[in-house]
């Protein structure tokens, strides 16, 4: 609290060198017709925030503009490729996604509720798990790599069917122990720099850290197209990068730790619109 107050004071004094702190007040409307909820009241379980903001509000006007129209959105190339893959037979069973699911639109709403606990196994699963389970069990095809273009394109394509719907991740019942695990990770100060997710994204959102404008770390836009990497970035890849940057031994993409963290972080954004594929810096 004290740090925040000090930071605010320094931000006010710092105008000649640093950019203005805080999220902007632009309105996120996609294709001139889809009104997105990019700012809303924090859910009760997001204890230390009053208002939650999409990461879109922390980016430059140029970056923001790329997400406003699907013809400008560089992620859509990968989504189109995934739409082709959806109908492409792969694996020994001679099936494609479309063999069972017909239209990808049938997935509307799924992304908004993920991750969730699989009723059969009792395990927490994320979208990549569902896709690979279909590929290996039903299609008898090879599993895709977690952060590969085909996998993240497919996650984004399925997520796109929920675009504009509010994130609504269940945190109670079977999900509760995973949520607690993710929450504990969120507040753990990892690495030689001893930084937790909360240090930057809860205590210092809106502030500049070197050239980077700290957001609240919401993941409703993931997979997101990152201009700096020129491809769709998975949630676990971003988690890995953040923890690496604390000079820590990070966790692996597809690890149970990151599944739990994904559940917790996604739930902090309950109420924000699903934005994938978003565009970030």
């Amino acid at each position, binding site marked *: 609290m*004290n*740090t925040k107050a*000090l*930071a605010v*004071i*320094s*931000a006010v*004094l*710092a105008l*000649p*060198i*640093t950019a203005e*702190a805080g999220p902007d007040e632009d309105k996120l409307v996609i294709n001139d017709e889809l009104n997105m909820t990019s700012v809303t009241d924090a859910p009760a379980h997001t204890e230390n925030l009053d208002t939650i903001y999409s990461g879109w509000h922390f980016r430059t006007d140029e970056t923001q503009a790329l997400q406003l129209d699907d013809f400008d959105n560089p992620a859509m190339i990968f989504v189109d490729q995934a739409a082709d893959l959806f109908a492409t037979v792969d694996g020994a069973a001679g099936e494609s996604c479309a063999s069972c699911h017909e239209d990808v639109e049938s997935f509307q709403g799924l992304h908004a509720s993920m991750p969730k606990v699989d009723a059969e196994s009792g395990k927490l699963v994320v979208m990549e798990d569902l896709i690979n389970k279909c590929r290996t069990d039903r299609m008898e095809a090879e599993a895709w790599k977690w952060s590969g273009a085909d996998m993240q394109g497919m996650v984004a394509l399925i997520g796109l069917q929920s675009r504009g719907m509010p994130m609504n991740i269940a945190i109670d019942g079977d999900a509760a122990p995973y949520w607690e695990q993710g929450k504990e990770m969120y507040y*753990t*100060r*990892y*690495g*030689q*720099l*001893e*930084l937790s997710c909360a*240090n*930057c994204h809860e*205590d*210092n959102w809106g*502030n*500049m*850290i*070197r*050239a980077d404008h*700290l957001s609240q770390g919401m993941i409703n836009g993931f997979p997101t197209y990152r201009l700096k990497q020129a491809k769709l970035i998975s949630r676990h890849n971003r988690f*890995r990068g953040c*923890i*690496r*940057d604390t*000079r*820590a*031994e*990070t966790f692996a993409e597809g690890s149970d730790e990151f599944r739990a963290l994904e559940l917790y972080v996604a739930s902090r954004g309950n109420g924000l619109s699903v934005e994938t594929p978003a565009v970030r810096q």
Partner: protein
Amino acid sequence: MKLRQLTLVCVMTGGAALAAETDPRDVKYDDYGGIEASLTGIAGDAANGAIIVGDKSKGNCVACHEVTALAEIPFHGEVGPMLDGAGDRWSEVELRGLVANAKLTFDGTVMPAFYKDEGYIRPGDAYTGKAPIAPLTPILTAQEIEDVVAFLATLKEE
């Protein structure tokens, strides 16, 4: 200039310099988190300290703090308080403690400890994301701490 040369000599004759250095685990903090004694016995080089404060691969202090004296370096952060006037607000003893391990001055501060080599959760091999392959070393050396302290001490309000 003379100090600078001395520093270089110490770096080049590492063994001799190390002998006088206080190990991170032997540093004596006072009740308020300050460190009375120099970590090396060699006066800090403020000019080199300024480089460390601004250098991304060294202290990278400007990632979080704005410093008008280093205004030529782009993108100063605003996570921590502005450093202008730090030399008026803090004594050398306090500055040394703040740079070495600010958590002993401000409990729970977000600021990393720059002279510490244990007590971490999942420390890695620098920024590789991998497990360490050698014993951890502090983020800055003892002399680099002294250099940064010397630089901060020059930051006076006009």
